[in-house]
């Protein structure tokens, strides 16, 4: 202990860091964390490889052209494991700022972890490219150092509602949201959009994050006899438990919609997962971006449908590259300005822009489980042909 304290004191007396080297920068350092362990690992762990694949690809074509330095600079990701924990996330973002001296931040997964990470952006004045973080709570206080590519959480299910409006055959909805930052907002927005589209929300409740037994909630839903049941839960445990007990208690809706249902959820349900509808940040198409995205996923060792958030990551990489190129320099203020003025067309048809608050325009697309795999239900015309109702069959 004494040695420890003495060591700390000694470490503190050492100079804070080597003085800044003058001259042109040699590379662009992009820093962030990815949950490689903990409850969120199943959703984003391979994204470390995804980032590497992107890094290799960009550097293979010479890097990003930087006007101010008269040449292209290679990029380098520095990614730590935040263990799905907010405190760890903040520590690492602090470290990225002070020790790794990154040029820009790329966000972690989930609004919760963004909440922690963003604290580092203000104190260190480093442009923060948010990724999977879109809750209004994050945008309550103005912060010029961060923007997100995603549309606000309460608009997240827009495309789903569009699809359902065209689909027909459903009238009443029961919505259960996990009591957490993101899920509440998303469920609220969904309920509003459904009502506006002429659907009827007959049940809408929030369950505490540590609910383990959903029998009572399922029973309450059954009482309302909904056509469609919606579960808004970010990470597996909640949805697996709910779904298994819905099956057990005999809740047999015509349509089952689970906002986030990665492979472990599909596996946990077995054949009962058939025709479950969910959301993914990618859709079928053959634009150049589609091809690039698929190649990157392949290089990272997975299929796009297995990791729903991969599409957001890809869009974030593109935003970063675009902003850096337009800024032409690594001066943080210039990058920050360029970050806000993104205007990109991705995947042939998506307009990527930011509004005055800092939100973007990214929204997920509906998909459905066929034979244990996700099949895209977008574009709508194609989706309508492929879609099958769950019809209460588990």
């Amino acid at each position, binding site marked *: 202990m004494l040695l420890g304290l003495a060591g700390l004191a000694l470490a503190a007396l050492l100079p804070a860091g080597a003085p800044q080297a003058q001259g042109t920068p040699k590379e662009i350092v992009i820093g962030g964390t990815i949950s*490689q*362990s*903990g*409850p969120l*690992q*199943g959703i984003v*762990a391979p994204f470390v490889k995804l980032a590497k694949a992107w890094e290799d690809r960009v550097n293979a074509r010479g890097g990003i052209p930087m006007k101010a330095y008269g040449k292209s600079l290679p990029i380098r990701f520095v990614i730590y494991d935040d263990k799905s924990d907010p405190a760890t996330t903040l520590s690492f973002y602090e470290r990225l700022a002070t020790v790794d001296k990154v040029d820009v931040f790329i966000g972690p997964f989930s609004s919760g972890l963004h909440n922690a990470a963003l604290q580092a952006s203000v104190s260190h004045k480093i442009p923060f490219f948010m990724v999977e973080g879109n809750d209004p709570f994050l945008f309550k206080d103005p912060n010029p150092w961060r923007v997100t590519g995603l549309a606000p959480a309460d608009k997240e299910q827009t495309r789903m509602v569009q699809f359902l409006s065209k689909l027909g055959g459903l009238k009443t909805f029961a919505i259960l949201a996990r*009591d957490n930052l993101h899920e509440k907002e998303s469920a609220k927005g969904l309920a509003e959009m459904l009502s506006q589209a002429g659907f009827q929300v007959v049940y809408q*409740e*929030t*369950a*505490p994050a*540590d*609910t*383990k*037994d959903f*029998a*009572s*909630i399922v*029973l*309450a839903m059954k*009482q309302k006899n909904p056509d469609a049941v919606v579960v808004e839960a970010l990470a*597996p*445990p909640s949805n*697996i*438990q709910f779904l*298994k*007990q819905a*099956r*057990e*208690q*005999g809740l047999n809706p015509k349509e089952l919609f689970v906002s986030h249902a990665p492979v*472990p959820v599909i*596996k*946990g*349900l*077995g*054949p*009962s997962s058939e025709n479950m509808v969910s959301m993914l940040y990618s859709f079928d198409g053959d634009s150049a971006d589609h091809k690039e995205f698929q190649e990157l996923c392949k290089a990272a060792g997975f299929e796009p449908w297995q990791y729903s958030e991969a599409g957001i990551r890809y869009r974030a990489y593109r935003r970063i590259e675009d902003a850096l190129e337009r800024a032409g320099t690594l001066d943080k203020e210039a990058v920050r300005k360029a970050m806000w003025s993104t205007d990109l067309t991705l995947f042939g048809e998506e307009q990527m822009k930011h509004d005055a608050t800092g939100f973007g325009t990214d929204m997920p697309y509906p998909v459905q489980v066929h034979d244990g795999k996700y099949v895209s239900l977008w574009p709508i015309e194609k989706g309508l042909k492929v879609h099958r109702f769950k019809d209460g069959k*588990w």
Partner: protein
Amino acid sequence: MDGTLLLQLTINGVLLGGVYTLAAFGLSLIFGVSGVLNLAHGEFLMLSGFLVFLVSDRLGINPFVAVALVSPLFFAVGYAFERLLIRPLALRKEHVRLASATLVTLGAALILEDGAAFFSLGTEFEKSVGYFLPTLRLGPLVLPSLKLVVFGLVALLIAGLAAFLKYTYVGLAVQAVTQSPRGALLNGVPTARIGAVAFGIGTFLAAAAGGLEVIHSYVSPLIGLPLTLKYLCIIVMGGLGSFVGVALGGILIGLGESFVGFLNPAWGQTVAYLLLVLVLLTRPTGLLGK
């Protein structure tokens, strides 16, 4: 609220209580005999679920067979745990022993939790067996089959335990040690070995609960400690040293969560702790405690 709904909520509540009781039982047995609040109890539950999942998912074995194969292994695990980590503490003064046992079991819990997380890297963090035991129906009522199995096991358990405690040597020895470790020792009861046996049985019960849990719901490396503490609250509410008390406490909480969860899901999780605090404030040694 009509009769069917009331009945369904009651059935759900009792069955849920059964689930709690199965796992809490082992903890109560361990405490009764060794005087140790085993903070690693939930980890054994988790590990068993982990193994059952691996056995059934990777080897294709029927999950229930897997539970029957895996759970008995944990008797040995519990026995060894007691001999290695708890027995050395036996001769310490009481409050020192309690402090040491807390540290030892807490440390063990951390090791097991982190070890499980480590072995989950690159694979599923939450493990859930995709096996469905079709629900039984009784008219308009739904009887979740798996919970019925658990409940049946608990009923068997209580009956079996009662007989065991009354009619077998080991059972009588357990009673003796629970009542007075010193007295038992003076009477020639091998208290040390009884302690290990109790740990073995208790851990076996946790393992059975864990195996069934991964089929019914899921397990993940993080469920251990929160569950342990919830079970501790249950056995304390029921009254330390009383096995019927555990069942009573478990079922009471199950019913509470079932009804409150129906009326207002937001307060469902509060019920258990509210009940605990209320019970203890009115009966300082729990429902059936001495």
